[in-house]
């Protein structure tokens, strides 16, 4: 029998603090859709997606209603499109992307990830097609999301790919200049890309995965923030250890919600359950912010000294709570700090408290990286590549995932305000100090070798 206080605390978490299941993402291997004719590729893709995903939205809604918790996004992540596009050209890439876009729309799926190239050691024919097609693909489709893995702790950093991505980001921004470079928000450049991440834009279905899996992303910065507030209001002598414990317990509860929903959706669809990813993924709504958690932890101005330590504690406590709640934790599992998508972070950036350099430091201990950051549209390609390289170095040296989602806003200068709308929020364009001053480093190209695994000081 349940106790009344247990029932009421769950009701508080689900309804007053707006806990939702952020995403149910169907991972699908589409390698069997390869064909020599692109028309056949598209036909097979469409058939397979509709066969496997047609009931996804309905099932999520039904399971969500049974437990009284909404599943906000239903998404699809395919195996890397680069495999399908081997032996094809740019025209085929665009056609495949449009087929994906339409199939997702037909299944009422709001985003489809996996327009992906894995180039951490070198660029294959299919990868090159994916990368070169990105400006056109991301400007002419709505739902397609892309990712490019340019570095790994085993391969090092492919600086040729990094340099290319600097150029490509500017081209995507130009192709979507009417939307202030918004196409770049649908592309993540990774080191150590996870194969089972359910969160967009970086979700793809990895090579080691089953034919199809259901992966769950739960979030809940609001729930964690409220739990900390309540703990602080109780008063008494509190240490950071106590607050970390509170975050851990809350993360446990949230992760259990995700696993419950995920397993039931998977069972109903007859698809194996993959992982649950508890990541504090903020939205622009007030109260759903990682930045607010940092403020609650005593960082008055986000970006002030102590911010990195606070993010480290938060990320670690979230991981520990998640790992105890489920034996199937995967994906990112930590705290995201996407600047435009988090009202408090966006505010700190606008006031100049949060700089690119401090964000970079914080990403060395958060679960992703430089995420949703607006930069001036005239930033040189080599400088964008150098920013990517720095972030990749953090991932490679620390054996963790890092990602870059930069938006060079065409025509925008530092301090300009940019609105992306909806979940993508708004941001103030950040200043890039010393732009152009690392061009020679980037132009060397080649590969930064994989780091030594011993002598770790």
């Amino acid at each position, binding site marked *: 029998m349940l*106790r009344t206080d247990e029932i009421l*605390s769950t009701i508080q978490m689900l309804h007053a603090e707006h806990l939702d299941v952020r995403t149910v993402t169907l991972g699908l291997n589409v390698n069997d859709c390869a064909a020599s004719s692109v028309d056949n590729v598209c036909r097979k893709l469409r058939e397979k997606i509709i066969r496997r995903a047609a009931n996804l939205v309905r099932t999520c809604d039904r399971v969500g*209603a049974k437990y*009284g918790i909404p599943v906000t996004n239903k998404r699809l992540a395919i195996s890397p499109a680069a495999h399908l596009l081997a032996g094809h050209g740019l025209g085929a890439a665009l056609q495949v992307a449009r087929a994906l876009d339409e199939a997702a729309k037909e299944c009422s799926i709001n985003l489809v990830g996996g327009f992906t190239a894995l180039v951490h050691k070198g660029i294959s024919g299919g990868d090159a097609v994916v990368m070169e097609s990105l400006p056109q693909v991301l400007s002419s489709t709505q739902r397609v999301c892309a990712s490019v893995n340019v570095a790994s702790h085993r391969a090092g950093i492919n600086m040729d790919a990094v340099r290319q991505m600097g150029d490509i980001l500017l081209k995507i921004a130009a192709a979507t200049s009417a939307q202030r470079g918004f196409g770049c928000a649908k592309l993540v450049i990774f080191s150590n890309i996870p194969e089972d991440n359910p969160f967009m834009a970086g979700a793809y279905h990895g090579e080691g995965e089953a034919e199809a899996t259901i992966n769950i992303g739960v979030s809940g910065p609001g729930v964690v923030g409220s739990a900390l507030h309540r703990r602080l209001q109780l008063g008494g002598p509190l240490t950071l250890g106590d607050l970390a414990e509170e975050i851990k317990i809350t993360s446990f509860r949230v992760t*259990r*919600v995700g696993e419950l929903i995920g397993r039931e959706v998977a069972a109903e669809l007859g698809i194996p359950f993959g992982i649950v990813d508890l990541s504090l993924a903020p939205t622009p709504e007030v109260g759903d912010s990682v930045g607010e958690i940092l403020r609650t932890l005593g960082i008055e101005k986000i970006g002030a000294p102590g911010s990195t330590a606070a993010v480290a504690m938060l990320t670690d406590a979230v991981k520990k709570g998640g790992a105890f709640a489920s034996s199937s934790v995967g994906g990112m599992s930590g705290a995201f700090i996407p600047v435009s998508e988090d009202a408090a972070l966006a505010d700190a950036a606008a006031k100049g408290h949060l700089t690119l350099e401090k964000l970079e430091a914080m990403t060395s201990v958060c679960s992703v990286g430089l995420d949703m950051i607006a930069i001036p549209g005239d930033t040189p390609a080599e400088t964008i590549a150098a920013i990517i390289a720095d972030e990749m170095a953090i991932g490679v040296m620390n054996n963790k995932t890092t990602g870059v989602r930069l938006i060079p806003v065409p025509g925008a200068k530092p301090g300009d305000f940019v609105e992306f709308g909806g979940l993508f929020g708004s941001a103030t364009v950040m200043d890039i100090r010393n732009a152009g001053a690392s061009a020679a480093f980037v132009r060397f190209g080649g590969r930064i070798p994989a780091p030594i695994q011993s002598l770790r000081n």
Partner: protein
Amino acid sequence: MNTRFEHAYVLNVMADDRPGIVAAVSGVIVALGGNIDACSQTVLGGYFTQILVVSFPQTVAPEELTARVQKAAPPGGALQVAARPYVAPATPVSCGATEKFVITALGKDKPGIIHRFSQYLAGKDINVVDLYWDGAGEDFVLTAQVEIPKRWEIGMLQADLDEMGREEGFNVRVQHENIFVATNQLRLTGGHR
């Protein structure tokens, strides 16, 4: 349920709450050589109530059991006691296979809400196994742990209760109990592991 001894009784005790009631009741059972097989008690608004299943190797007349417990009352007032022979129910009263859900409602308090709410549940063969109500302030909180026959579509029940909530001025939710187990307890939720 299984009882330790052959002769089992259901015993119900109500009293002004104070120290010593549980000791008094259990003392009588021990003195008669019996065993407490199950017990549930609660205190509400300063009143104590307890329901027990007790068993003895020999028969004990319910009237005698009642009298002995009454006599054992600790200082501070009488115990209201009732006893009857325990007969295990053959099948649960609710119809067919059921699933456990929790219904919660919050809103402005006024007379008749529990009645209207429970009448609706009764009409659907929904068994209430635990009910909590707090209407001390202007607002009320209701939680009901219920067994819902599998033949009902949860969305339909939710829609009906939403309609009632609109009329009476409360918010109501029907949720499977596993969401509460998952968020509060370390045990596994049944079904999909």
